[in-house]
Structures are given as C-alpha cells and as structure tokens.
C-alpha cells in the first residue's frame, strides 16, 4: 500500500483506568497516519479493546489528549462519527433484513458505497434478503465488516474481526480488506490471532499491560530481522528468540548479508510478550 504520511490519530500522555481498577494506560503517546493497516496486538486484557473504545468516544480519558482528524472522540461530533466505524467482537444488529438495514442505515454515512457492499456480500456469500437476527454469528460479523468497509470511513477500528469466521471467510476478509481500503483511510485491527492478519498489515503495535512495547513498520522489521527455521541453535550467531518445532527451531535473528525473510508475526509476537528485547 502507498503510504501517505498525514497524522490521523495523535494520542498524547493518555491516562486511563476503569473505575476501581489500577491504571491501565499511563502516559501513553502514539501517532498513527492514514494510508496504512495497523495490527494492534496483545494478550487478552492488555488494553487493546479499551484503546479502540477510547478512540471511538465510548470512554473518556482521565487525562491527556486524543485527536483524530481534529476531533476529540469523546465529543461524539456527528461529523467525526460519520467518518469512523467500529466493528466490535460481538456487534449488535437489529432484527431486520440486510437490505432494509442498508437502505435505512447507509444514508447516515455520506461516503457510503452501496456497490462496494454488494460486491463484498457476494464475496462473503450473503444474501440481501437474509434477516440479520436469523443468521449465524460468523455471517453477522462478515456483514458488519462489509458494511464498515462500504462506509469508506477514514478510520476503521476492527476489534477481533476474524473471531467467528471460518477459514475460507478469513481469506476473503483479507482479500476484501486489501481491495477496499484507499490511502486516505486508516485501519486499526486489534487481535490476538496474529496469523489471521499476517500479510495484510503495514505496521505492528504490541500493547502489554497498557503500554506500547513495540511499534514498527513491517518493512523496518523485515530489514532488520530474519525469521527462519534451523535444525539446531548452535550454528546461529545472534538469536533473539527461538521456539522448538518438529524440524528443529523457529528463530528470530538479526539480518545476515541483506537476506530478507518473511516476517513471522506469531513468532515475533511470542517473543515480545515473553519480554525478549528486540531492538530495531
């Protein structure tokens, strides 16, 4: 994807805690630009969903600031909301037909593309006459993902989008996401199923206990690290992290002789959550 470097999200010194809980985010600072698909990774309870809820104005920060295209999310400005779509893990859908939902809900999004949605529905094998409350959880999720993409919102927040999707649907999800997004948009995908978003993201952000422990573009990682499978660890010079597998070891090592390998996100994620220091 072409990267257009214009700051869309600026978070500065964000502090947040749920009531009666210890501080979740402490002085969190982050800047994200449009024109990219960002993978927000972390274990359960790391604060991924909370961050998405703060970005969509569902929660208010205790201190610090969040700026999204000049809007403060918690103000719930309708112009801001019409340029944002949040797909939650368990999205609510009303008890109406898909076509009725599109007919009545789509006009609230000024950039909505009905043809794009129809194509996505065909890809996902969903019929417009299906009733939203009668279809399965996975089908509902696919419809909401399709609807979110068709809104052409500048900011798409997808919370565990692949949960409930079967393997062919996960493949279609990746395809439609890549095809639908343009360079004015930013997609933030929060997940702990890192394999599902491999090959589609441009940037990885790992969040652990409310702190951003890793924030790098994929091309940076590919330039500096190698991900390979070796029969033994003895022959390797600088191994940052290794995992045993039937044929030997999966390892992360520094780049040798400018030989780039494909980024193994799961391995990288495992290394990061095991507090392995990986400097890029």
């Amino acid at each position, binding site marked *: 994807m072409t990267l257009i470097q214009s700051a869309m999200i600026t978070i500065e010194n964000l502090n947040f805690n749920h009531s009666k809980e210890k501080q979740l985010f402490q002085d969190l600072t982050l800047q994200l630009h449009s024109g990219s698909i960002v993978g927000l990774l972390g274990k359960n309870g790391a604060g991924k969903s909370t961050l998405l*809820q703060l970005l969509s104005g569902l929660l208010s920060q205790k201190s610090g600031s969040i700026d999204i295209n000049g809007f403060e999310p918690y103000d719930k400005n309708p112009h801001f*909301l*019409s340029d944002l779509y949040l797909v939650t893990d368990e999205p609510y859908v009303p008890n109406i037909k898909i076509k009725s939902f599109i*007919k009545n809900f789509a006009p*609230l999004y000024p950039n909505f593309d009905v043809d794009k949605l129809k194509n996505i529905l065909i890809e996902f094998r969903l019929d417009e006459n299906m009733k939203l409350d009668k279809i399965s959880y996975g089908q509902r999720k696919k419809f909401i993902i399709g609807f979110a993409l068709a809104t052409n919102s500048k900011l798409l927040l997808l919370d565990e989008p692949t949960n409930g999707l079967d393997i062919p649907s996960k493949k279609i999800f990746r395809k439609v996401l890549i095809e639908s997004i343009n360079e004015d948009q930013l997609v933030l995908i929060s997940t702990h199923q890192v394999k599902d978003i491999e090959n589609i993201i441009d940037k990885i952000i790992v969040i652990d206990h409310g702190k951003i422990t890793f924030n790098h573009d994929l091309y940076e990682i590919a330039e500096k690290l190698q991900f390979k499978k070796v029969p033994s660890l003895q022959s390797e010079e600088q191994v940052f992290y290794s995992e045993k597998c039937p044929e030997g070891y999966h390892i992360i090592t520094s780049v040798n002789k400018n030989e780039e390998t494909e980024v193994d996100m799961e391995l990288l994620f495992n290394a990061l959550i095991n507090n392995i220091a990986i400097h890029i």
Partner: protein
Amino acid sequence: MEKYFNPTRFSKYFRYNLSIHYKAYFITCIILLIGLVCTNYIYLCSNHEYKANTHVTIYTLSYCLSAVLVIGTGFPELRSKSKTIYFITIPASILEKYLVQFFIRIICFTIIYHVLFWISLKLAHHFYMLTDYKKHFVIYDYSFFSALENGYSSKSYSLFSLIISICLLVFTGSAIYKKFALFKTVFTIFAFLFGIYILLLIYSHIFNPEVTHGFYPELQPRNVYQEYNTMILLMIAISCVTSILLLPLAYFKLKEKEL
C-alpha cells in the same frame, strides 16, 4: 450549530429508528388498544352508564400507566453493552438521538394514545351493545376532542403538571439507567415522593408541633389566589422545577454516556 442539529441528518436518523423499531411500536399500539377496549368495556358492563366526565378518570389513569411503560422503556439501545456501543457510534448528534426518543416516546405516544382511547371507547360501546343489548343505554357522545374540551380547574392543572413531571422522570430514568431502567426509575420516583413526605413531616413537626402526631404531617394549606392554595402551588412548583431540571439532565447524562 450544525454539529448539534441538522434537519436532514435528524430525518435520516428518525427514519432509521422507525425502520428498526416499527414492529415494537406497532405491537405496543395493538396491546394498548386491546387494553383500553377491555378497560372501557369492563367499565361499561359494571356501571351501565357513561357520563360526560367519566372518561377523564380512565383516560388519565390509563395514560399514566401506559406512559410509564412506553416512556420508561425509551432508549432501548442503552440496555446492553453491544447495543450501547452501536447507539453511541451512530453518526447523529446526541441532541438528535435525544429528540428522536422524546418525539417518539412522549409526543407521538401522547397523540397516538388520544386516538387509541377514542377508538377504544367507540369499540367498547359497540361490543357492549352487541353483548348486553338488553341493558342498552345511550352513551355520552364522546367526540374526538372531548378530552381536551373540559373546563379545567386548578386541581386539574396540578394533575397535569404532575403527569408531565412523571413522564419526564421516567424519560430521564430511561436515559440514565442501563439495566432494569424502568424498575429503577419507578423506585427513584417513590424515593423522591418519600423524600417530599419526609420533608413535609419534618416541617410539620417544626412549625406545627402541637397538632402533628407521629408520622402524619399536618398541613394547613392557605388560599393564595382564587382557588389556588399552597398545597396545589407546592405540587405545581415541584412538578415545574423537576421538569425544567430533568430535560437538560437527561440530555447531559446521555452526552456523557460511557460503556
């Protein structure tokens, strides 16, 4: 201003709201009509007469009861987490979301209730004539505007203000509370009324210790103007103040709604 209210966006959101809730609204109207027909029919069978002002009691009591149920179940999207997320992120302003509920649950409901009551009375009369024709009597000719045509006394004004404040209390409750909103609102109303009773009791013990005994506040209303005594004025004042406070309270509570 545009960020608070835009007529086009409001109409789109209003249409959307109707499209997803039209079944619930329709079923509510049907149930309300059946309930009103039954109430009026039972009343006719047991009294065999229907005088000029008979409808006022049934009209007022059924309105209060149905208003508590209809208005108290407003903002249905706020009852669960997934619906709240969906409701907050709908691209309409908080004022538009608030006004849609206010318009549907209070204004539309009041108009529809009036129409349904008129239909129910006519239907109940017809059913009565079919089933109990021997005790045939001429029903008071209840016209469509009968409920609005009576000369109102100071007592009815205080009753109106009380009904308005109850409607606004349940509306505010539906915007504030997440789960069991109706139950919590009714509880709040009783707590509020109990608070007023305690206050009057305390005042009664302080200012009229000789005549106040136990838990019975001894009120000595004085005539202030024409038929308006201090008790009626107190009721109107409480109703007006709560109404004025509750409207913005519901809005700001909705605006600050979090997960």
